[in-house]
């Protein structure tokens, strides 16, 4: 029997001081958790407004305001994803943070 071999591990740039990397990790965590909190709050506003209020109940020319808001809820995360991907790629490529 052999023990399951450990996989190769990820890690910080070995040329960068540990405390500098820790500070970058803290900043990264703050950014992603903040962005996630905003995403969740904005998203949850949609079912709350639609089901508890009449704000999204309007209909104009056969198109519902609820669907317009829903389409925005579907498309806005794409913008967030594009922005996040660009930000992280810039950091990985050594650009400004």
């Amino acid at each position, binding site marked *: 029997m052999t023990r399951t071999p450990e996989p190769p591990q990820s890690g910080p740039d070995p040329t960068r001081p540990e405390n500098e990397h820790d500070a970058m990790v803290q900043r990264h965590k703050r950014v992603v958790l903040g962005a996630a909190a905003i995403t969740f709050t904005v998203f949850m506003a949609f079912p709350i407004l639609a089901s508890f209020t009449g704000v999204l109940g309007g209909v104009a020319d056969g198109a519902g305001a*609820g669907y317009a808001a829903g389409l925005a809820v579907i*498309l806005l995360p794409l913008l967030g994803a594009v922005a996040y991907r660009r930000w*992280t790629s810039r950091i990985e490529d050594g650009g400004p943070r």
Partner: protein
Amino acid sequence: MNGTAVAIVTALIAVTLALTTYASRRNKSTAEHYVAGGRIGGLQNGLALAGDQLSAASFLGITGAVALTGFEGFYLAVGVPAAYLLMMLVIAEPLRNLGRYTLADAVAARFDGRGLRASMAVASLAISVIYMVIQFVGAGLLAQLLLGVDFPVAVIVIGGLMTVYTILGGMVGTTYIQVFKAAVLIVTALALLVLVTADYGGNPLGPMRDAAARFGDGVIAPHQGGLTASLDTVSLTMGLVLGMMGLPHVMVRFLTVRDDRAARDSAQVAMWIFAGFFAALPIFGYAALDQVGKAAIVADNKAGNLAAPRLAEAVGGNLLFSIVAAVVMVTILAVLAGLAIATSGAIAHDLYTVALKRGEVSPQRQLLVGRFAGAGIAVVAILIALWAKTLNIAFLGNVAFAVAASTTMPVLVLTIYWRHFNRTGAVAGLIGGLVSSIGLVLAGPDVMGDAHLFPLTVPALVSVPFGFLCAWAGTLAGRGDADAAGHPYDELARRAFPVGGRSRPAREAPV
């Protein structure tokens, strides 16, 4: 029996079997079996994520729900892109860097302990088996309705195919099948959209406008149905958007990618597909309402699950109906393949190799057990599906999301982000989340009917905060236990977030 539909289903299944045979040449090690050796690129994994996520429940269920309930059905469609953004921001990269074959591996990177590993595996199994039963029952009923095949025959054939995919192809084969399924589903949905839009003078909003003109504006506007109904809607969408981050068969796909960049790319590719797909579903729903009619949709199936195939028949004749029916069957097979891999990983890797054998298992035996676990779980799921045929399983999907949002999601997030989190808190969060989410479903209206003790059909609004609360209380209770503290948090964080450094390379196949 619809001969055209059966012929197309057979042809598509033949393609999936050919892909599995091709993939079997690469499925020689444990790492390849569970995570395709960690070598999948961003585009391929994005398509596979779409193949995993775009289930028959999404395509048929949401289209039917919009056709029958109007705006209420749309709530199910809006959450997926937001859920994937949360997944991309919070979990995808650290999970990829900490995990190995299963979700439990990521938690075990911080906390040792066979009890925690087993708890995580049990939560993963509960979620995956619920999801699997839904797919089996849905597939059996659809095969009965669309192809004229008996329910037990359909379930057993589908279970057999799932076993072949898992044993021979592993994650490599599953990835190929999911990419193939995503491609045929996208092409089919696009063809349907073009034909439907052409019927309305090229205006994609035409079906919605026609529905409003014929049935009143109320059919395209949200309803206010009282406090309980509104809370249920909020709970449903909350469970959906948070539960996605805890679904083992979805999250395990991030363990297959070659690096962090590929993890992000794959989430983004999947999100573009979801945005197009879910934005089109209300168009299909209202077009079905206009062209098929509510009475005919309900006559086929009370939940409206045949609205999409009937719409296809209305705009494209029996050929398009048969294509849609065949694509739906392949869709179910692809989702089941992903579920089988995630489930066999929880059994063979977490429970057998680590919790039972303490890691003292040769790579060859791990692979063998993984393959047998895939076959075993197929048998169990088939038996449950045969028993559950007469049950109303529509609510089980929401249960799976609520359980994931209340168990695996809080524990993964707190393991990665909370410095003071400990093993006692992780076990407490898993058990508290599992008991509260399942307990509240059992006490709710879907199970107890009018005598229900809990008013909501989806418990996420209560069980998610309760899962986090249990994790926090358990952490406080375990603060005096040095063993429960786990590995130093800063070391874990450096591995999880190699910001500006290197992410773990592709997993090398153990000999």
